[in-house]
């Protein structure tokens, strides 16, 4: 009982233990901040990846998958699969309005079904907002004044022809893909000197033969309907969406009449006409990828398994006309090229960094040890008195262990609070550092995200805070044992 009274009094009347608590605070805060930012980074990465790609996909890159409508309905018949969307992925050479060339990853999508599989609508940037972003005090955001037609155009990937009013297929590039937008403080994107949705770009694609050789270059001008932002910088700077039928047509993947007997050098009897080729059926339209969204309560892996099942049925029904089930690629979005290794690398990096910082935090143990050791030397007489009053050796040890635990608790609580304040305000703090000291730690082009992500995992936080208490108890252990072993007579005679 006396331990709690003494702990309280020692804590409020001395500076050194508060320094020990401060050390614990710094260590716990440091580990928590690092952990939160890194897991936030991973979480954003996962969320963005999924935003763009759906949960799973069936892909046959170059020549594409014919009869994909049938494949889609077979996929959607599976209970694990909620919905699907056809897409075509290709590379495009882009001429920006001022003639500057770019290379984009072009994804041909059907706006409506693409939105059902991914979170397309949420990523569309130019849509009216009622209130400025929290930090946009000067109301610089153009979205405060634009009309709703931009959103509608983005969803259909069309733009009305200025002359006729008829819809023209359009593209929707990532917010940072053109370089015409700049980031103002507070996450507001501001057009630099052109407002992209009012511009046009030239898109050139290469239809590729079955063997992978470029057959031709197809170039066309497209209006820009809108821009999107997934938050994954890599994607937002290099990707553009385009209307599926337009890119199908340019790549020669649209439905086409198949003919036989076509000979450009033979003419009919009169000698003034080509021999008309015989129609021999219709080559079906193709897409390279069918994206899949898992049904509620099913994992991407379960959706993939269902897709494999559905594809087997599809291949059996269509025979050699469609890619062989053993060659076609069916994968979850995490298994996509690059994504898997990248995620694994990030996870490993998190574990490594947290462990490293955990080791660095061992310094807190030594600090607590040193401070408590000197405190025990300082309190020899008190210990002698307590023993003379009948305190047991374990009782004296408990006094210092308990004291260590309280110091750890105070330190951990302060550290947790400090980490929480910093983590929840990490972007303003970073902005301030950038503005006041010119320090930019988080470069969006390196770290994928325009803002520093963070996520406080309660279990991780509890672990770190408990670790802070444990470290300080461990630091107090040897001094506590020393105190318990003191000979009371010597302690009382101690000068």
């Amino acid at each position: 009982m006396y331990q709690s009274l003494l702990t309280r009094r020692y804590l409020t009347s001395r500076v050194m233990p508060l320094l020990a608590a401060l050390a614990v605070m710094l260590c716990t805060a440091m580990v928590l901040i690092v952990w939160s930012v890194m897991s936030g980074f991973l979480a954003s990465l996962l969320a963005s990846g999924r935003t763009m790609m759906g949960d799973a996909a069936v892909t046959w890159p170059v020549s594409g998958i014919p009869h994909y409508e049938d494949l889609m309905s077979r996929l959607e018949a599976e209970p694990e699969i909620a919905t699907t969307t056809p897409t075509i992925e290709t590379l495009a050479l882009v001429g920006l309005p001022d003639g500057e060339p770019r290379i984009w990853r072009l994804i041909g999508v059907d706006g409506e079904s693409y939105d059902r599989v991914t979170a397309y609508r949420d990523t569309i940037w130019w849509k009216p907002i009622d209130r400025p972003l929290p930090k946009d005090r000067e109301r610089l955001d153009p979205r405060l004044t634009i009309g709703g037609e931009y959103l509608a155009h983005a969803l259909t990937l069309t733009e009305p022809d200025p002359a006729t009013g008829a819809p023209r297929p359009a593209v929707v590039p990532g917010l940072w893909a053109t370089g015409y937008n700049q980031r103002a403080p507070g996450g507001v994107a501001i057009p630099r000197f052109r407002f992209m949705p009012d511009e046009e770009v030239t898109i050139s694609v290469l239809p590729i033969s079955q063997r992978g050789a470029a057959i031709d270059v197809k170039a066309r001008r497209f209006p820009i309907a809108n821009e999107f932002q997934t938050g994954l910088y890599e994607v937002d700077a290099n990707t553009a969406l385009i209307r599926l039928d337009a890119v199908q047509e340019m790549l020669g993947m649209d439905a086409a009449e198949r003919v036989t007997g076509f000979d450009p050098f033979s003419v009919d009897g009169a000698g003034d006409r080509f021999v008309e080729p015989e129609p021999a059926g219709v080559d079906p339209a193709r897409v390279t990828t069918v994206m899949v969204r898992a049904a509620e309560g099913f994992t991407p892996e379960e959706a993939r398994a269902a897709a494999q099942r559905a594809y087997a049925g599809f291949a059996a029904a269509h025979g050699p006309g469609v890619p062989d089930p053993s060659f076609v690629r069916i994968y979850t979005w995490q298994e996509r090229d690059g994504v898997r290794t990248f995620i694994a690398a990030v996870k490993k990096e998190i574990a490594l960094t947290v462990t490293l910082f955990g080791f660095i935090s061992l310094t807190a143990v030594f600090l607590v040890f040193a401070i408590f050791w000197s405190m025990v030397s300082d309190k020899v007489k008190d210990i002698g008195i307590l023993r003379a009053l009948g305190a047991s050796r374990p009782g004296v040890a408990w006094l210092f262990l308990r004291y260590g635990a309280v110091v750890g608790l105070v330190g951990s609580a302060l550290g947790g609070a400090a980490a929480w304040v910093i983590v929840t305000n990490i972007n303003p703090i970073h902005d301030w550092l950038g503005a006041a000291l010119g320090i930019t730690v988080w470069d969006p082009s390196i770290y994928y995200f325009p803002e520093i992500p963070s996520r406080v995992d309660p279990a991780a936080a509890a672990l770190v805070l408990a670790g802070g208490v444990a470290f300080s108890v461990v630091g107090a252990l040897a001094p506590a044992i020393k105190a318990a072993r003191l000979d009371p007579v010597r302690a009382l005679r101690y000068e």
Partner: protein
Amino acid sequence: MVHETPILEARDLRKTYRLGRARVPVLRGADLAVARGEFVAVLGASGSGKSTLLHLLGGLDRPDGADADSGVFFEGQNLARFSESALNAYRRRSVGFVFQFYHLLPELTVLENVMLGAMVGRGRLGYLRERAAVRAGASELLDALGIGRLSHRRPRALSGGERQRAAIARALVNHPPVLLADEPTGNLDRATGAVILDSLAEVRDRLGQTIVMVTHDPAIADRADRAVEIVDGVVRRHAGVI
């Protein structure tokens, strides 16, 4: 009285300190029997082993080679047979220590210092249950010793005499039958020392404590029932030279 078991007895008590290789024999067969309610003064030259004797009597230290017939006996029980925890309980309940240099804990108030004696050895629950009684008892003791109004001060804001009275209150808070005082007035002027002695006498009259008091001052020894002297490691009757 002769036939009654002494409440505290030292029989053939031996204690040798080691200083590196050297052996410093301090007590070489000291005998002392203290009857219940008796006030015994212990005199002796500096370094003769008075404090050593008191520490052994109080169970703070263990004598050399105690066997069935030698060592410290409390109510006929040899302390050498006590386990560590029984010895802790003995210090807690059966004896109270008063030191020359008060030995109050500087971070606690006077009242808390006194209550500390009652907190030690009680679990949280046990203490909380009796807290009111302990507090009342402690306050009463401080009042009886004339420092009740100082009970919320820190020891450093007290005079030497006031501190020593606080220390006496702490030693008595558990109502131990035996009070062991090591030169309680050694650090005080004569008049203050006399006040302390008066306080002790009053407490003893009320609670019937047995007192063993180490002192250098033959005048104080005169107030005791009996005075003994440590010479060459053994206890002798004090000759009564003033």
